[in-house]
């Protein structure tokens, strides 16, 4: 028999974290607005490259994080509902 040990609230929290990170990464700019602070080339260019030129992986990461976040939220919600229903039945002596 498969043993299941789940902390539903933790899973929901993780889902929120994953989605928040996906949002933050999707809104990440290319660094051009901050390059003035470096006082010009070449560090301004390098910073822009560092922040902006991982776009391909960033967009894929955003998609993955959003999917996994939603999955975690869904699963966590189902576990919470199941635990609530189970607790209610145990307390009221309803159908097992």
């Amino acid at each position: 028999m498969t043993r299941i040990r789940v902390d539903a609230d933790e899973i929901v929290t993780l889902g929120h974290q994953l989605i928040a990170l996906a949002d933050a990464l999707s809104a990440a700019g290319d660094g051009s607005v901050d390059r003035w602070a470096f006082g010009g080339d070449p560090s301004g260019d390098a910073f822009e490259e560092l922040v902006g030129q991982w776009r391909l992986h960033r967009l894929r990461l955003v998609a993955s994080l959003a999917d996994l976040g939603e999955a975690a939220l869904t699963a966590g919600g189902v576990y919470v509902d199941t635990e609530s229903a189970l607790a209610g039945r145990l307390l009221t002596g309803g159908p097992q």
Partner: protein
Amino acid sequence: MSGLLWPVEGSPDALELIAAGCQEAGSQISDLLVAIQGLRTGVWDSPAGEAFAASLGEVSAILQRVAMRYGDAAGAIDTYAAALRLAQARAQAALESHRDAEEQVLSLEDELWQLSCAGEGAGTTAYESALGRQRQAVGQSLAAEGDHTRAAQDADEANEVCAATLRRIADDVIADPVPYRVLHTLSQVGATMASLALIPHPATRAVGAVGGLVATGADVSLRLFYDEGSWGDLLLAAFFTGLGTSGKVLKAGSGLGVEKGADKTFTLTRTYTTGERVRAASAQRWRGYLDSFDPRTARSGAAATVSATTPATATVAGGGGLGARLGQLRQRAADAVRNQVDKHFLDGLRKAKINDTTTMFAAGITLQGTSKVAPRLVPDPAPPPPQGSPRPAREAVSTAAGPTP
């Protein structure tokens, strides 16, 4: 002595904020990685949890790399901020010392001049004293320039070191591959060029058309090779590229069913629904497009250009002096512009008012944009009815659309 000295560029305060932001981003990602690791130690100990953790495996590797990127960058930027702050302070001190010394030199120059005028020239105690103080001020100015140069050099060196560190950090497995960068740059540049098409000039419209093609090609390549974007987005972009054509269709459709008589009055001859107007005007445009490939139509169009231009030339040539000819030309051009405006805009608007399709007409004008309307204010010779053509295009369109009450 040289002129003014300038402050060293850059903002250490802003750099520290950027570094703090990078540090925070790196920490948040690291915290998330810890939470992900926790999944395997009891938070979600089930088959579903194992599957989920396995899905997170690849994501975790990239997240680790991102966290390292931001964390390492924060350190490099902080170091640069400290060096820049120091260099700027030294440069600022040198700048102020230089300014004071310059002011002193000029003041002593006046003093020396006045002493000379008063008969206390070279060799007198007062003159030699003032001259000595001026030499000291010049020395201070030169020393300040040297300090400023060294401070600026130190800032440049710190800038180079920071750049080298950031580039080393950015050179990792998640950096964009070169072909991807090229395609993305082409997409951005092409989109910028395409926006030039809104400027009402043939050259900018040509550049805009080329830019649109470049951007679309790059976007399709990104979709094909990197799975970026969607075909729906690409179709939408193509649709918006064709808005100019859509505008023409709407404008033409808004005037269908109203005829202009010889006495310049407008008469409602047929009613159309909005859908029928769009279909009929689209058919009209399509027919015009096909006619452009018909050699007979093309020849008659060329003949029309000649025949419409020749009489004007003859009339002008028969006039008096150059001034009179120019006046006639201006008058003719003004008449042609008025006729063109009347033909292309006012007639359309009047028809639209009778049809109660003013909104559709306005939408057509808006979509076409100034780029489509303004160049037409320069008179084009009106083509005569095509020879050998069974009937005018307008009749053909009306028939093609068919009446619907």
